[in-house]
């Protein structure tokens, strides 16, 4: 390393951190150089976010030191870290956005927060500059829109726009691509390249290994709170990384379990809701996994919400197992035999302030109770089973869900529905933020559900998953189903072609 | 109507001594058209600006005002202030803005009302106040119940029945002008009867009855033996009710309660032989209202009225009440001198007005 390099290196030495006696980080040593993109990888709960929160000043480490350009820094608050030029896009987007304020204000949140600036604000300028930044990252939104009206991916992009508004030396991106479509992720990679070219060090966390290998210069892998390796990208391959992450060799696969297909269990005819669901017809048979793929904003989430009674349909009929479904409310949908694992887990999927136990049993309180009285044993037994099956990493079943890592929260959101006696399962992007090992676990569970004769509707923008998992793939574009493929018929390119309504650039 | 003025002045201080037959011709001779004079007094719009407005006492007082005004063909608007002097000041302003013919003030306060009263005076609106301490205010007739005397009556009776010695509990709270006046009498009482010891004192105006009941229970437990406590002096009937309940429910029938103020509800408790509340001193709330309206009508009539009219308190003891039947305050005059029957402030032309309105 030359002296010049040394001047632009950020070094975290011997970092340790415990939560309530449980060690999350153990003696971690980690460095990033200016002008590189450094991937930080690891299974769910490995400690990536915790390490980054220490770097950004959100947490204080128990032991260890941080050096920026050779100087030891003490970060007691995010403000200290920001002053040292370190900016972070957190995994839980809602923790860093203010819902009832405009997009513009959220973009300039750090600047509004900074001290030593002018007291008076000029709204005209703020909106104008925000508009410019939004255009730069390719978001067509009015800067006056309230953030609470945005979709998850739009919120993520607002946070990325915030990076442009700041003068950073190091940038942390904690799973920014999880809620993004491939198209949006591509835009993000362009931004990362720009940052890199400007001499900024970028730390990038992701569970999508292909993109990691596409964009990164160096890779660090963590396992169980320890750093297990740091290598140049060129010196390692995907299977090596996965082995380091999981501690065993592992082949990413789509376990295809044999099922027998039965009669149609979900029949949707002429479903309409607003502009996002337009005349959808579809069938799912017992034992069948049907994937709905589409680009961001195609209306997948909206479709799943309407099918679950969370939003109201304007028109159309839905029947489950031959009987018309009651979609006036989620409670009605559940009664009709439908379950939904929603996309936005922190807001909709889990109760962050409740324990893992209470989360897992929430939809089946009736099953685990008798004459209205809860059976502690039944509830616990069910929870323990889900924790084992899904590999939920939690110190105790009574742990508050907010303190779980992002991926483990997602697993809780899935686990709570597995035990219900639903006929139809709707999964809206269930693998976002889930590590490769756990992803396979989820696929296996979905396969098992199909084997039990359930109908599965799997909504995703990851075409590879759809291709690997589904018996049938429906392509959604602008709220309508535009194409249907049977297993083995489609390729990624074809899916993309139809999903983008045959636009030239994707063809 | 100058002769009239003198007459009614005299009448206000000693109404009983006056016979209607003496004044009637005089007023007739002074006024060429007495019926026109009376007609002019009809249809008056009166504002009643009150500071307190809950409880039976207030309700009876308002009743007294309204009934009397109705007898004269007037109409009363109540502007209630929920014990908020700022609101009371605003209410007074509002009454002036609405150009009422006359304003009655209940439990006011000089500081809070001075501005509004001046405005009313400028607008030529006559004012009669009750218990408001507006004695220095020119042109206003002030009805006052003598709070020190109220306290003295009950305390003296307490001392007498206790034989000049014993342990007493005081339930009192500061912050309200009448309460503070009663405290002056209490202080004099403790200096006079050095053998009477105050062993506990409390009081809370936010939840007077229940809080007193709870605290009285604590005191009873603290002094568990008969004879530990001789009596309770409650400076407000709400307190007396709570203390009586506690004592009655604890079965400590040797303790007597002396209170101040008297509503129908209180009277019923005093008559109950099982209740420890034996005596109270009060001015009849209904007659306060009645007298206040009469003075206002004197002002309408153009009479020169006294600056201060003292309402003499009445002392009511269980011994003077009938044991065989339950009576209400409107029958109390049959048993207790000076109660309710007050003719204070009445004049011939008011009687005539009453008759003329009643005839319509």
């Amino acid at each position, binding site marked *: 390393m030359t002296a010049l390099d040394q001047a632009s290196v950020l070094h975290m030495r011997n970092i340790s951190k415990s939560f*309530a006696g449980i060690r999350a980080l153990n003696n971690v040593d980690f460095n990033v150089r200016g002008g590189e993109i450094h991937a930080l990888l690891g299974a769910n709960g490995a400690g990536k976010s915790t390490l980054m929160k220490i770097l950004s000043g959100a947490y204080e480490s128990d032991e260890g030191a941080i050096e920026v350009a050779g100087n030891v820094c003490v970060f007691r608050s995010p403000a200290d870290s920001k002053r040292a030029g370190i900016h972070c896009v957190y995994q839980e987007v809602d923790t860093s956005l203010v819902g009832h304020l405009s997009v513009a204000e959220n973009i300039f949140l750090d600047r509004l927060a900074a001290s030593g600036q002018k007291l008076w604000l000029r709204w005209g300028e703020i909106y104008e500059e925000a508009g410019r930044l939004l255009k730069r990252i390719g978001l067509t939104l009015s800067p006056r829109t309230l953030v609470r009206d945005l979709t998850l991916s739009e919120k993520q992009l607002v946070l990325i726009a915030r990076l442009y508004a700041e003068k950073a030396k190091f940038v942390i991106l904690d799973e920014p691509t999880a809620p993004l479509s491939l198209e949006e992720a591509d835009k993000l990679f362009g931004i990362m390249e720009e940052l890199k070219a400007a001499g900024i060090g970028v730390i990038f966390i992701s569970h999508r290994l292909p993109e990691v290998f596409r964009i990164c210069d160096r890779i660090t892998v963590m396992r169980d709170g320890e750093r297990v390796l740091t290598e140049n990208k060129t010196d390692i391959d995907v299977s090596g990384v996965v082995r380091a992450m999981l501690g065993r060799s592992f082949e990413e696969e789509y376990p295809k379990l044999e099922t027998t297909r039965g009669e149609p269990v979900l029949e949707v005819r002429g479903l309409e809701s607003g502009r996002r669901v337009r005349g959808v017809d579809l069938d799912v048979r017992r034992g069948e996994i049907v994937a709905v793929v589409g680009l961001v904003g195609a209306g997948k989430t909206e479709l799943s919400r309407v099918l*679950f009674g*969370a939003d109201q349909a304007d028109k159309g009929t839905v029947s489950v197992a031959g009987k018309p479904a009651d979609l006036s*409310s*989620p*409670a009605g*949908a*559940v*009664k009709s035999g439908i379950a*939904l694992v929603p996309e936005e887990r922190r*807001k*909709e*999927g*889990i*109760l*962050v*302030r*409740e324990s893992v136990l*209470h989360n897992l049993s*929430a*939809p089946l309180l*009736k099953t685990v*109770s008798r004459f*209205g*009285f*809860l059976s502690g044993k039944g509830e616990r037994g069910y929870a323990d089973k889900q924790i084992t099956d899904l590999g939920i990493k939690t110190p105790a079943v009574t742990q508050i869900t907010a303190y779980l890592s992002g991926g483990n929260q997602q697993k809780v959101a899935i686990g*709570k529905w597995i035990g219900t006696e639903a006929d139809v399962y709707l999964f809206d992007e269930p693998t976002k933020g889930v590590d490769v090992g756990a992803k396979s676990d989820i696929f296996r569970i979905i396969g098992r559900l199909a084997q039990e004769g359930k109908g599965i509707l799997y909504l995703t923008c990851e075409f590879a998953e759809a291709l690997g998992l589904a018996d049938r793939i429906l392509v959604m574009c602008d709220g309508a189903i535009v194409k249907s493929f049977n297993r083995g018929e489609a390729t990624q390119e074809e899916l993309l072609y139809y999903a983008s309504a045959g636009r030239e650039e994707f063809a | 109507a100058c002769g009239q003025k003198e007459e009614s002045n005299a009448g206000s201080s000693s109404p009983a001594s006056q016979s209607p037959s003496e004044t009637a011709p005089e007023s007739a001779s002074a006024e060429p058209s007495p019926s026109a004079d009376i007609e002019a007094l009809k249809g008056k719009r009166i504002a009643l600006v009150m500071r307190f407005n*809950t*409880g*039976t006492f207030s*309700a009876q007082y*308002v*009743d007294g005002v309204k009934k009397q005004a109705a007898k004269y063909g007037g109409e009363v608007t109540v502007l209630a202030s929920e014990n908020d002097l700022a609101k009371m000041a605003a209410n007074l302003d509002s009454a002036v803005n609405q150009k009422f013919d006359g304003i009655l003030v209940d439990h006011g306060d000089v500081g809070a009302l001075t501005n509004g009263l001046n405005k009313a005076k400028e607008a030529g609106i006559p004012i009669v106040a009750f218990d408001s301490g507006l004695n220095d205010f020119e042109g206003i007739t002030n009805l006052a119940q003598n709070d020190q005397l109220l306290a003295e009556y009950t305390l003296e009776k307490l001392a007498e029945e206790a034989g000049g010695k014993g342990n007493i509990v005081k339930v009192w709270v*500061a912050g309200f002008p009448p309460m503070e006046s009663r405290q002056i009498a209490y202080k004099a009482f403790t200096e006079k009867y050095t053998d009477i010891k105050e062993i*506990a*004192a409390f*009081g*809370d105006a*936010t*939840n007077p*009855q*229940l809080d007193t*009941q*709870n*605290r009285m*229970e*604590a*005191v009873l*437990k*603290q*002094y*568990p033996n008969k004879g530990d406590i001789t009596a309770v002096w409650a400076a407000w009937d709400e307190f007396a*009710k709570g203390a009586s*309940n506690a004592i009655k*429910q604890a079965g400590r029938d040797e303790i007597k309660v002396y209170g101040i103020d008297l509503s*129908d*509800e209180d009277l*019923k408790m005093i008559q109950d032989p099982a209740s420890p509340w034996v005596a109270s001193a009060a001015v009849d709330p209904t007659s306060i209202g009645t007298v206040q309206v009469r003075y206002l009508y004197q002002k309408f009539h153009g009479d020169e009225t006294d600056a201060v009219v003292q309402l003499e308190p009445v002392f009511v003891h269980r011994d003077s009440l009938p044991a065989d039947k339950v009576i*209400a*305050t409107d029958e109390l005059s049959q048993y207790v001198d000076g109660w309710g029957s007050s003719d204070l402030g009445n004049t011939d032309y008011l009687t005539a007005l009453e008759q003329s309105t009643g005839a319509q």
Partner: protein
Amino acid sequence: MKNRLLPFTFKYGALIFIGLVILFFSLTNEYFFTYNNITDILRSISIVTFVAIGVTISLAVDGFDLSVGATVSLSTVVTATMMVWYEMPLVVVLVVPLVVGALVGLLNALLIVKIRIPDLLATLAVMYIVNGIHKTYTKGYSIYGNMPMPDGSTAPGVMDKSFLWIGQGKLLGVPFPVILMLLAVVGAHVFFKYTRWGRQMIITGGNEEAARLSGLKVKRIRTFAYVASGVFAAIGGILFASRIGSGQIDAGAPMLMESVAAVFVGYSVFAAGRPNVVGTFFGAVLMGVLVNGLTMMNVQYYTNDMIKGAVLVLALAVTFIHLNRRKTG
């Protein structure tokens, strides 16, 4: 050692604190810790405890019911008029105010669940309305046996003896309201801890949207919570009437703050940091003990509030200093 002691003092800190307060009063006054005085204290808090259980329920679904005080006032005068004005049999006397309380709860629920007015706003408005109703109903008069009516006649009824027993009687030497209160506390605790519906309420309170998407009928649950809050307040009102033997205007007004204080102290008990029935009960006990003990000590009445507030702060601090330390630690 230190590590094991800390969580202990943390979890039981508030209870230990209440214990110390009781110990203090017991040492300063020999009559404080007597059976009679303790049952008196419990009886004195029984009304507030009922109201506070209602508040706890509304807080459990992440609502807040500001109308409970007004509901107490309304139900206490309704109870009294049932006897005094209409001479109804005991069962009607008891059922009508409960129904009235439930109706107030339904009105709250309508505004909050249907029209979606935020809970604090809606219940504040309902508080004004109910306050107005109960005063209009009685024309501002308190209600007592054989009261003179505004039209000059005399009310036909008196407060029923058996009714008064509810608030003043004893069963096996224990004041009846205390028995009622303990039953309610245990019942509500069991409800929240061991029944499906109680759990559903807690989940709804945690995150309404997530609860809805878990298939819970959140509207029905919230409605039920407000109705329960109204009914518990109404029970408080009934007890109030039977304890003091009349129906006082505005009797419930101070109950709001008192019950809220009890519920909040309850947050500290067992370091729950959230509404819980057992905590609420101990909160009410602390407040009752303070009023009783301070009266016995004959401290100047005007300093009571100050001491009450300081004790409240201490009780809360015991928990939250730790809760805070644990979170960031």
